[in-house]
């Protein structure tokens, strides 16, 4: 059981970390609470189902194609629906909910409401010390780690990364320094949706696909970014690992655990918030107090 907790916790933690880092990035750079974030994740999973299973493309084509298409949709949604009304934060919030609902309903109409599965990209498993770990899990954890390291490098080492971080710190000053904050926000949106899409295509073989699969991860992602501190990448990663392990431990050790897993994860988030109101690694910006 301990090994199960370890494997599933690491696996879920990796996926949640991908989602939470993306969510955190776009909140930081554009102050958008993108509730459609996990809907992009779902969209990518369905795209890989469509290209890989229905159209029978090879995974090597289907996976990058899905990621690119979903990312383009994300940038399109940003430019058409969010950028023009950016000052009205509540309206943007509801627009992201509406976008998520549109995705959900389109998928319901196109693919129907029944559960779908995608076959694994790689089959087989290894069993070190009697723990059975399928290659798909290892691949997912590997890809997620690589993507997170890549995002970290982009943020820390490139001009775009500096621009994103500076506009996250203070949008107005960044604008005064001659940066095109709208374009930076669009680039951040692309990275953020891209991360969600990568997570989506990687877990498509592991999760069951259905049109409401965006809701449960959304609640957890929100809890994670709050726990870790909004806008903090490190916080999102650590928060994801904490909540994923709590969730998996509850499922494996408590009776009725699958009903309580989210409740207990959220209760722990609340306790941490009461002690540290800005999350583990969050900071209050002076102007936003």
């Amino acid at each position, binding site marked *: 059981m301990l090994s199960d907790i370890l494997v599933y916790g690491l696996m879920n933690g990796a996926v949640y970390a991908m989602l939470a880092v993306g969510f955190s990035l776009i909140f930081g750079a554009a102050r958008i609470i993108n509730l459609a974030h996990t809907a992009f994740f779902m969209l990518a999973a369905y795209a890989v189902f469509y290209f890989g299973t229905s159209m029978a493309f090879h995974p090597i084509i289907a996976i990058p194609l899905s990621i690119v298409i979903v990312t383009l949709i994300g940038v399109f949604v940003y430019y058409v629906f969010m950028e023009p009304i950016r000052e009205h934060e509540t309206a943007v919030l509801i627009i992201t909910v509406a976008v998520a*609902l549109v995705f959900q309903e389109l998928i319901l109409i196109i693919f129907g409401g029944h559960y779908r599965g995608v076959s694994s990209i790689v089959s087989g498993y290894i069993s070190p010390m009697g723990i059975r770990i399928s290659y798909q899990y290892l691949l997912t954890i590997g890809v997620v780690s690589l993507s997170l390291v890549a995002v970290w490098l982009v943020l820390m080492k490139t001009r775009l990364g500096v621009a994103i971080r500076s506009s996250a710190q203070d949008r107005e000053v960044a604008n005064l320094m001659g940066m095109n904050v709208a374009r930076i926000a669009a680039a951040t949106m692309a990275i953020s949706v891209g991360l969600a899409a990568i997570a989506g295509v990687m877990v498509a073989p592991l999760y069951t696909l259905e049109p409401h699969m965006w809701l449960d991860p959304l609640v957890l992602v929100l809890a994670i970014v709050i726990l870790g501190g909004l806008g903090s990448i490190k916080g999102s990663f650590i928060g994801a690992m904490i909540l994923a392990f709590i969730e998996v431990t509850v499922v494996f050790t408590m009776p009725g655990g699958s009903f309580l897993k989210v*409740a207990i994860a959220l209760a722990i988030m609340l306790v941490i918030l009461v002690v540290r109101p800005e999350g583990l690694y969050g900071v209050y910006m002076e102007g936003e107090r």
Partner: protein
Amino acid sequence: MAVIRMSMRYIRNEILVLPTRVIAVVFVLALLLMPLLTQDMYILRILAIASIFAIFAASWDLLSGFVGQVSFGHALFFGVAAYTTALLNLRLGWPPFVTIPIGALAAVLVGLLVGIPCLRLKGPYLGLATLAFPIMLMGIIFVFPGFFGGELGISGITRLASLRIHEYYIAVVLMLVLCYIMWKITDSKIGIIFHAIREDEIAVRASGINTIKFKLLAFCLSGLFAGIAGGLYTHFLRIAGPSMLAVLMSFQAIIWTIFGGIATIYGAVVGVFILFPTLEVLRAASEYRMLIFALIVLMVLRVMPEGITTFIRDKLERECPRCKVRNAFNRKECRVCYSEMR
């Protein structure tokens, strides 16, 4: 005679001068006279449920629009009141006019319990922390299915009143009265402090006002009104289920209010009375129902990001540049100070 002349003058000078006030009066009269126009139970039922949801949405507006304590878990108040009402009614057999106030009081208590840990949180942190409460409660409800009815909820609750028409009038009149009270609260001295807390909490505290007291008051008031809505809804539909605590329920209140216009109270009412019947009409296009609904919300907010009432109000009325009184859009001079409207 004099009374009639006085009231005629009042109607002419205070209501007919502003198109939005005419719309509001026509709306209220239409709601009250609806049973004379149609005996169709389906229409009356939709309007009654819309009234109940209008109370709920307006209570969200009171807390989040005015005080700025954006709550993503408003269904908590609704659900707690619904379950309290249902359990009291079913287990103890108490009538609706006792259970609904007790349910609302339970919601107030929950408002305090939620408000106290949330006092230190701000902005999105507060919103996303409040999101957690109804989900946690839902987990508890699923773990004790014997007491709370589990997934199916609690059914077999007595009706709000024995006649459909009475139920309709209870819902509609309560909605009008409660929303008027909420509107007056936001207009009062307390309302000004609420506004100020939203704009700059530190400045309010620096002015010697105990913001903690007022924030808790906002949580309690909002819980009270949402709780009344929850109790009414339970007795109207005669069921209390876990869907009343769902994330979607909280977001429905937010969607209605922002669609109608945030921080106005009447915007919440308008939002519900447009979107809820629309969703019912769309049942005709069963498969595309939610898609069309989401697209309507998307397009309307894209064009009018401040909400539909604010948008229409700004089209129909202008503010006098000198005395700040609102005037109809077609007036050349202000109706109070006769200065020229530019």
